[in-house]
């Protein structure tokens, strides 16, 4: 346990704990909106932010937050107002972000090793100031996300209804994206920019194997993310590997363990559920009921005859039957 007595390790543990809580909390709303890869894209953009910090000799965390939030807002605006080109525009932003980052780092006279610490996480780089910023940002993300959770949920669940109910759909979407951007920066030091999206998405996928509701998924994902984050950091410290990779592999192991359980439950439910009451089904039942009937419609079958164009329909249970080959069409 000697490692735990190092100050940088204690800092890193606090950062990992908060990251593990905040990333899946925001990630739940991204997955709900089917934007699982948004975190990855924001991570790419944040690389440019880090490089700007290195180039100008200011805090890379600060510049990364600013650039990532700006990028997230731009992405959200493109998604809202851009039509079919939105997808391509996102790709342009993502790759522009990472290429710009690498170029700017080179201009700053720093080698790839400096960037590596941000891309894949490095616990030894967490300083006292970094920790204060990380804690502040993570708490902000948690407070905002959990406070507005009901509205984020409503807006993503059914935007049309939310607008009719007077909720500002565009505004809440931008807030979610901005929180995702802040989370990316918070997780930069522990998981790294290229793997942060995994910590936002995989715990959610794991939790939803076992949950039936949104709140349960949210809470389950936060617990899973927190456990994986702290455990991964400890393992990486003792084995001396990159913490980001260890944390992400742990979350994936969690998913691999719960998936069979979820698949089994879903299969059971499918077998137990009654046939869906869709119109085709109703027609089928109807036809079956009629097939069981023992007469052909005719002038003396007792059903009222209604002339209809070139043939005669028969009123039957409130609708009309037209003989057609061996069955009756409904007119």
């Amino acid at each position, binding site marked *: 346990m000697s490692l735990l007595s190092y100050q940088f390790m204690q800092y890193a543990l606090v950062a990992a704990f908060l990251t593990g809580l905040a990333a899946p909390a925001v990630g739940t709303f991204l*997955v709900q909106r089917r934007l699982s890869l948004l975190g990855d894209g924001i991570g790419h953009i944040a690389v440019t932010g880090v490089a700007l910090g290195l180039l100008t000799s200011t805090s890379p965390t600060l510049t990364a937050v600013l650039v990532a939030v700006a990028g997230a807002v731009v992405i959200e605006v493109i998604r809202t107002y851009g039509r079919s080109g939105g997808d391509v525009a996102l790709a342009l932003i993502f790759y522009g972000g990472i290429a710009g980052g690498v170029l700017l780092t080179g201009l700053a006279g720093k080698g790839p090793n400096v960037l590596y610490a941000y891309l894949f996480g490095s616990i030894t780089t967490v300083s006292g100031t970094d920790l204060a910023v990380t804690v502040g940002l993570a708490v902000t993300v948690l407070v905002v996300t959990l406070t507005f959770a009901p509205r984020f949920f409503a807006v993503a669940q059914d935007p049309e209804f939310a607008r*009719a*109910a007077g909720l500002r759909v565009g505004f809440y979407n931008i807030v979610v994206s901005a929180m995702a951007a802040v989370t990316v920066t918070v997780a930069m030091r522990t998981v790294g920019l290229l793997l942060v999206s995994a910590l936002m998405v995989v715990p959610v996928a794991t939790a939803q194997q076992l949950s039936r*509701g949104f709140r349960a998924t949210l809470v389950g994902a936060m617990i899973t993310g927190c456990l994986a984050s702290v455990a991964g950091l400890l393992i990486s410290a003792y084995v001396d590997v990159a913490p980001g990779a260890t944390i992400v592999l742990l979350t994936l192991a969690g998913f691999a363990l719960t998936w069979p359980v979820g698949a089994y439950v879903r299969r059971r439910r499918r077998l137990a559920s009654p046939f869906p009451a869709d119109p085709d*089904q109703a027609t089928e039942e109807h036809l079956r009921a009629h097939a069981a009937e023992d007469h052909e419609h005719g002038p003396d079958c007792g059903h009222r005859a209604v002339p209809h164009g070139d043939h005669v329909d028969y009123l039957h249970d409130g609708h009309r039957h037209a003989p057609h080959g061996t069955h009756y069409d409904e007119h």
Partner: protein
Amino acid sequence: MSEPVFSMRDGAVVLGGRPVLRRVDLDVHRGEVLAVLGANGSGKSTLMRALLGLLPLARGEVRAFGVPVDELRDRYRIGYVPQRASAASGIPASVREIVASGRLPRRPPWRPAGRADRRAVAAALEVVGLADRAGEDASHLSGGQQQRVMIARALAAEPEVLVLDEPTAGVDLANQRALAATLERLVAAGTTVVLVAHELGPLAPLIDRAVVLRDGRVAYDGPPAALPIDSHGGDHHHPHDPHDDEIVPTSVPETASPLDRLTEPPEHGEGVG
């Protein structure tokens, strides 16, 4: 007489460069049960969305409870039931959670749900008969039951008017009857109802006014009793044979009487509505 619930004056809506609603004048009065009927593409859903302020008007204006609908602060007074829930989201959501989201316009963002909120949600679930399914994943319910979830969500805000877009489309007869019973109770309690339908089915006895749209104009506005039989399309399990079209001239005059609808072929599937 009090302020109309909705009031559209000379309303026109243009979607993608195509006029969808033209010169529509419509007042919906308190306590009324209004059905908007018409063929696919006649502008029914567009009219609903314009009344709710979800679509901008190219001309004219819409007022809700006496104020321009965009400026209505108390949005909870309007309960909206969209035609179909948007594509299932990426995360499971329980019936209760979805219904509870309908309560949000009743409180500021920072205030968590209180006892009154939970009571309203429970009451809404009770009204649609889904109280025993509250904890279930809503995406596992049948289409008709999901429709009831959306009605409960609209009811959770305790609205004064309920706007339903095609509440009977794709819903089996048993669920249509359940819907009719639910609406009957709400109407008895004084709720105004505006609904879009292309067949009334079990809802017919509840309706006290029908508006028929044709090509984005009001072609009929009056009691449903005066509507020609079959004017809302009748049965649509099976396509009609072409002989139906031979009875009517194919070019229908613009000043159509509702009687023309008698001979229109029935509608199939969903459209712009």
